[in-house]
């Protein structure tokens, strides 16, 4: 207990403490869900892994989007498209040159080259979009990026590029059936022959499986958890990088562009160039997030990059608070836990606690029974279509959020935009004179941040 106490004390009000608190709360909730559902240890471990995985990928994407939207005010709703470019480029670069029958040929490059290539490709596509689109007002940029993300998806879906050759090299996207992702390096750690269906474990794998097997946690769960922890490390890296970008004169110009671009340019800042740079950086990070998420799956298909993914990321960021990196991570975790996985689990719990019988197949059937005051068919119908109802939930949450707390949970735009602490000064001699009333100090000035955003 004492270590936990000192830990929480040390973390105190810090942002890391806040993130850990949120994640801890979600873990507790899902452990309770698991217990109610009667899952064993392995089942709970698997549930928490899925929760952490989704929280991490949404945090990565929300962080990247926060750089573009939260800091620079660039309304990019093509997140899924840039993820697709990253993941597909990576897969195409690393696919084997000679894949065998029915396989999709690639360039056979090592994984690291594929990852870097994917990021560069996403950045370049972002840059090409940005050049014309950033001259437009924010709303038009949104339309252009949304259209672009669909163009990208349909391009990967098209049979024309299912396989093609450039300069004598065979390449392919696999069309609608997708392209296999490279073997996850984490599996190399555990299995001697990770490609085979029943791979024999390595010595390290043997030890790990033996250890966790004792708690009832199977091998695949251990492997998945390991990769999930890799993602968590990447969240940390993104956070660190983007905090640095934000807390710098560069970040200050970005904020100024968001607030009033004409002011920034009339103070000598080449706002267009700043926007292009930040857009490309954000897209590269989205590409990397796409690689880490969908690129880690066995098969990368165009259907993974539907525009709805973009809107999920936006909701995560709005929940957390745009403009705040900590908010992005918290928002990603809360979105994954409460909004994405939560409804499914609640549905399963209700389903297992009551006998509802077979769900009616149509909505009419479901409400017809209401005439005889029988609500069971309606509930059964609702549970049956819980993934559709999730959209309703998301909509409701967004509306409430916009009305009650438009700045998101963490408030927004509170992170300092300077590389040094601005408040320190060599001479602080006039705190007493602070009340000088020139032109009437506005009354609201002390209420400062708390009320801001209300009138937006």
């Amino acid at each position: 207990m004492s270590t936990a106490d000192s830990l929480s004390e040390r973390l105190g009000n810090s942002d890391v403490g806040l993130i850990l608190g949120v994640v801890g709360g979600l873990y507790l909730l899902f452990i309770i869900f698991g217990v109610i559902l009667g899952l064993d240890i392995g089942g709970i471990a698997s549930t928490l892994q899925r929760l952490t995985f989704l929280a991490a990928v949404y945090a990565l994407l929300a962080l990247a989007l926060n750089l573009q939207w939260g800091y620079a005010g660039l309304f990019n709703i093509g997140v899924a498209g840039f993820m697709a470019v990253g993941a597909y480029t990576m897969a195409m670069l690393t696919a084997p040159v000679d894949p065998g029958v029915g396989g999709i040929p690639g360039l056979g490059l090592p994984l690291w080259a594929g990852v870097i290539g994917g990021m560069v490709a996403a950045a370049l596509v972002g840059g090409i979009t940005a050049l014309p689109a950033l001259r437009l007002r924010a709303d038009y940029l949104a339309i252009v990026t949304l259209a672009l993300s669909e163009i990208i998806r349909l391009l990967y879906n098209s049979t024309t590029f299912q396989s093609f050759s450039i300069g004598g090299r065979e390449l392919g996207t696999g069309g609608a059936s997708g392209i296999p992702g490279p073997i996850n390096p984490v599996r190399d750690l555990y299995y001697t022959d990770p490609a085979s269906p029943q791979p024999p474990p390595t010595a390290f794998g043997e030890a790990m499986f033996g250890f966790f097997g004792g708690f009832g946690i199977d091998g695949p769960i251990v492997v998945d958890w390991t990769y999930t922890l890799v993602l968590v490390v990447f969240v940390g890296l993104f956070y660190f990088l983007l905090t640095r970008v934000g807390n710098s004169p560069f970040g200050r110009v970005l904020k100024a562009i968001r607030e009033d671009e004409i002011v920034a340019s009339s103070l000598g800042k080449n706002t267009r160039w700043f926007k292009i740079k930040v857009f490309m950086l954000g897209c590269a990070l989205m590409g990397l997030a796409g690689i880490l998420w969908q690129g880690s799956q066995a098969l990368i298909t165009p259907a993974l990059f539907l525009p709805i993914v973009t809107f999920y990321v936006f909701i995560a960021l709005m929940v957390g608070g745009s403009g705040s990196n900590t908010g992005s991570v918290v928002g990603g975790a809360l979105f994954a836990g409460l909004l994405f996985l939560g409804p499914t689990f609640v549905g399963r719990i209700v389903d297992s606690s009551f006998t509802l019988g077979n769900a009616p197949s149509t909505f009419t059937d479901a409400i017809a029974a209401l005439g005889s005051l029988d609500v069971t068919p309606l509930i059964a119908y609702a549970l049956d279509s819980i993934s559709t109802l999730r959209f309703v939930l998301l909509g409701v949450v967004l509306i409430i959020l916009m009305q009650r707390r438009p700045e998101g949970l963490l408030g927004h735009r509170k992170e300092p935009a300077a590389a040094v602490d601005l408040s320190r000064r060599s001479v602080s001699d006039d705190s007493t004179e602070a009340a000088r009333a020139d032109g009437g100090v506005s009354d609201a000035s002390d209420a400062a941040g708390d009320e801001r955003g209300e009138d937006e």
Partner: protein
Amino acid sequence: MSDTDSTTRTDTSNVIEGEDGPDNVDEIDPDDESEVERAARETPPGRPLRVSNLRKEFGGLTAVDDASFDVEAGSLTGLIGPNGAGKSTTFDCITGVHRPTSGSVHLHDEEITGLKPHEIADRGLVRTFQIARELEEMTVLENMLLAPRAQRGESLWRSVLPGARGAVRDQERELRERAWETLDFFEIDHLAEEYAGNLSGGQRKLLEMARALLTDPEVVLLDEPLAGVNPTLETKLLDRIHDLREQG
């Protein structure tokens, strides 16, 4: 914001709401051709800003009609005229927000006509806005620190790479001191950590001026620095402007 109907613009006499370049006191009505042309003909040294035959048309509307004037070094120059005379449009044309239909603007001996706003600001010609434009969700200090030119940390790489960040921080410390000094001078230092959006109208004007000065400008264009300001603050603002001129 700028219809130019030359009959309506007679009462230019003693309206002080004009724009004042930080230096000089000859008041020129942009439409008073004779005076303007005389001023434009000579281009002696020590006249950093030279505007000749500036003309701006929006469709069929002539907003600025052949405005020509010089601004002498170390002078406060006023540009006066009734509402809608085209003062702000003139400013927009000088600072690159609008591209003038014809005419030219010279800063020192370089022609800056039609350059982009940031290119013009980078050459030392900085403006404020008629309706103060603060970066509302940034603090007063952040507003100030945005202004200085040639900041190392505005490079993405230098703001991120570990080795380069030291130099960025050094410069930031230096700029922080300058920002505080300037805020002191304008007597708004007690508001330094306030969000700019919470400032009153007059305080915003002060902040705009302070921010413009932090760019180390050669010429500052103040667009209606006194509009909407109460008389007490007006005196103070004028004092500040004159102080600044005296300091060069």
